[in-house]
C-alpha cells in the first residue's frame, strides 16, 4: 500500500459525512436513557424512567396504536393492489407499459404535501371530510402503493418468463401457475415492498397532519405536537423506540432478503 494524500483526505471527509448522517440518531438514543430531567449532555445517569413515562402516556400509546393500525391496513391493501398492478405492467402491458409505470409511480414523484392538500379538499367536496380518518387511510395507501409496485416490478423483471409458460403448457391454470410458480419467485419483491410500505406508512406526516380526524393522531403527528410545548426526554424515548424498531426491521430484512434489493 502506497501512501496517498488525496486518498487520505477523501477518507477523512467521507468518515465525517458518515458521522454527520448518524449523529442525530445516536444522540437521541443516548439521551433517551438519561435519568435527568433535560435533553442535555452530560447525562446524569442511565435509566429507563422516560420509557416508563412513555408507557404511562395515553396520548403516545394511543398514537402508536393508531399508527400500527393504519400501517397494517396500508400494507395489506398496497401489497395486493401493487402486486397485481406490477404483474399486469410487466407481463401484459406492451405499448402502454412506460406510461402506466409512470402513472403508478406518480404518488412517489409528486411532493406528499401537495397530495395531502389535494386529498383534503377532495374529501370535503365529496362530503366525507376528516370523519373516521378515511381520508388519512386512503392517503397512506396512495403513498405506500408505489413502493410495492416498484419492488414487485423489479422482481418480475428479473425472472425467466419461460418458467410460467412451461407451467401453462403443462396444463396448469393461470391461477395455479400464479400460486405455484409466479408468487414463490417474486416473494422477495413482495416482502420488500410490503416492509417498505409499512415503514413508510409509519413515517408519513403531511397526509396524517391534514387528514386526521378529531381525536385520532398518528405517532409522528403526536410527537410533532408534543415538541411544540414540551422538550423533555419522553420525546427522546418514543423516538428511540421507533429508531430501534426500524433497526430491527432492517437487520431482519438484511438477513433474509438483503438490503441491496431495496428499490426506491
Amino acid at each position, binding site marked *: 500500500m502506497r501512501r496517498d494524500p*488525496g486518498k487520505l483526505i*477523501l*477518507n477523512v471527509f*467521507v468518515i465525517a*459525512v*458518515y458521522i454527520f*448522517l*448518524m*449523529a*442525530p*440518531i445516536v*444522540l*437521541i438514543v443516548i*439521551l433517551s436513557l438519561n435519568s435527568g430531567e433535560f435533553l*442535555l449532555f452530560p447525562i446524569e445517569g442511565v435509566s429507563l424512567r422516560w420509557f416508563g413515562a412513555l408507557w404511562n402516556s395515553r396520548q403516545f400509546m394511543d398514537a402508536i396504536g393508531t399508527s400500527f393500525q393504519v400501517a397494517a391496513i396500508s400494507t395489506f391493501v398496497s401489497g395486493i*393492489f*401493487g402486486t*397485481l*398492478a406490477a*404483474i*399486469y*405492467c410487466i*407481463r*401484459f*402491458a406492451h405499448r402502454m407499459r412506460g406510461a*402506466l409505470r409512470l*402513472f*403508478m409511480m*406518480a404518488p412517489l414523484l409528486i*411532493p*406528499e*404535501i*401537495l*397530495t395531502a*392538500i*389535494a*386529498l383534503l*379538499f*377532495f374529501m*370535503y367536496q365529496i362530503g366525507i371530510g376528516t370523519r373516521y380518518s378515511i381520508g388519512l387511510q*386512503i392517503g397512506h395507501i*396512495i403513498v405506500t*402503493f408505489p413502493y410495492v409496485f416498484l419492488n414487485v416490478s423489479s422482481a418480475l423483471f428479473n425472472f425467466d418468463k419461460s418458467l410460467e409458460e412451461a407451467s401453462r403448457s403443462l396444463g396448469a391454470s*393461470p391461477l395455479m401457475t400464479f400460486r405455484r410458480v409466479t408468487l414463490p419467485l417474486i416473494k422477495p419483491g413482495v416482502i420488500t415492498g410490503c416492509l417498505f410500505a409499512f415503514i413508510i406508512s409509519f*413515517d408519513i406526516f403531511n397526509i396524517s*397532519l*391534514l387528514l386526521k380526524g378529531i381525536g385520532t393522531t398518528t405517532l*409522528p403527528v403526536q*410527537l*410533532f405536537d408534543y*415538541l411544540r410545548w414540551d*422538550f423533555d426526554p419522553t420525546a*427522546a424515548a418514543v*423516538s428511540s423506540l421507533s*429508531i430501534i424498531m*426500524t433497526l430491527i*426491521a*432492517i437487520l431482519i430484512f*438484511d438477513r433474509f432478503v438483503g438490503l441491496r434489493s431495496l428499490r*426506491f
Partner: protein
Amino acid sequence: MSGAAPDARRAFLLVVPALALLVAFFVLPYFSIIIMSFREPATQGVHGGGFTLANYVSAVGDTFILRKLGETMLLGVGVTVITLLLGYPVAYHLARMRSRWNGLLYTFILAPLLVGLVVRTFGWMIILSNGGVANQALSWLGIIDDPLRLMNNYVGVTIALAHVLLPFLILPLLANIQAINPEVETAARSLGASRWRAFWRVTLPLSMPGIQAGAILVFVLSISAYVTPAMLGGGSGRTMSVLVVQYLVENFRWPAGAALAIILAVAAIVTVALFFALTHRVTRKLP
C-alpha cells in the same frame, strides 16, 4: 399467439383496482386543488359561490409571499448544493470500495432514510438549540462565548434538510457511479492525465445522470418539505409549505392556500426545467 388475446383482456382486471384507486383518490383530488384555487374566498364555509383570479393576483402582488417564495427557492438550491458537495465523495468512495465494510456503510446511508422525519428533525433540535450539543461543544472548545443562533432561522433548516435529504442524493449517484467502468479512469491516467484531471474530464461527466436524478429529487423534496422548516424554522425560517399549511389549518383560507400551493408547484417545475436545460449540454455528449 391468437390464444393470448382473451388472456390479455382478462389480465387487465389485475390493474383495475390500482387504476381505480389512483384515479379516484389521486387524479381527481388534484383537479380539486386547481378548482379550489379559483374559488372566491368566503368567511362562511370553505369557499364562496363564484370563480375568480383574485387568489393568484393578490398572491403575486404580495411582497411578503414573493419574498417567501424566493427564500424557499434559495433554500432548495442551497440544500441541493450542500448535499452534492457532501454526497458525491461518499457515493464515489463507496462505489469504488472493495471491502467487507461495504454492507455496513450502505446501511449507514439507508438507515437514516427509514427513521422517521420528525424523529430526525427532533435530533437536530437537540443539537442546534441555544443550550444544545453544538453550542455546548463550541463553547467548551473556547471558540464562542455566547451561544450561536442555529435554530429558528434558515441556518438550522438548511443543516437539517441537508441531513434529511442526503440519502436521496447518494443512492441514485451510487448506482450511477457503480455502473461506470473504473477502467475508463485508469485509461485516462495511463494516457498521462493527472488523477484530478481524469476525474474531472471522465468520471464526473459520466456520472452526470446520477447527479441530475439526485439533485432534482433533493431540490423538489427540500422546497416542498414541511416538517423540518416547521420544527426548526421558527418565525423567520418559514418556507412556502409552512405558509400554505398555516393558510389551510390555522387561517382556514382554503382558496388562497390552494393558489399558493399551485404557485409553489409551478415554480418547482420551472426551476427543474431550467436545471435540465443547463445540464443538458453535458449529458448530451454521453454515450
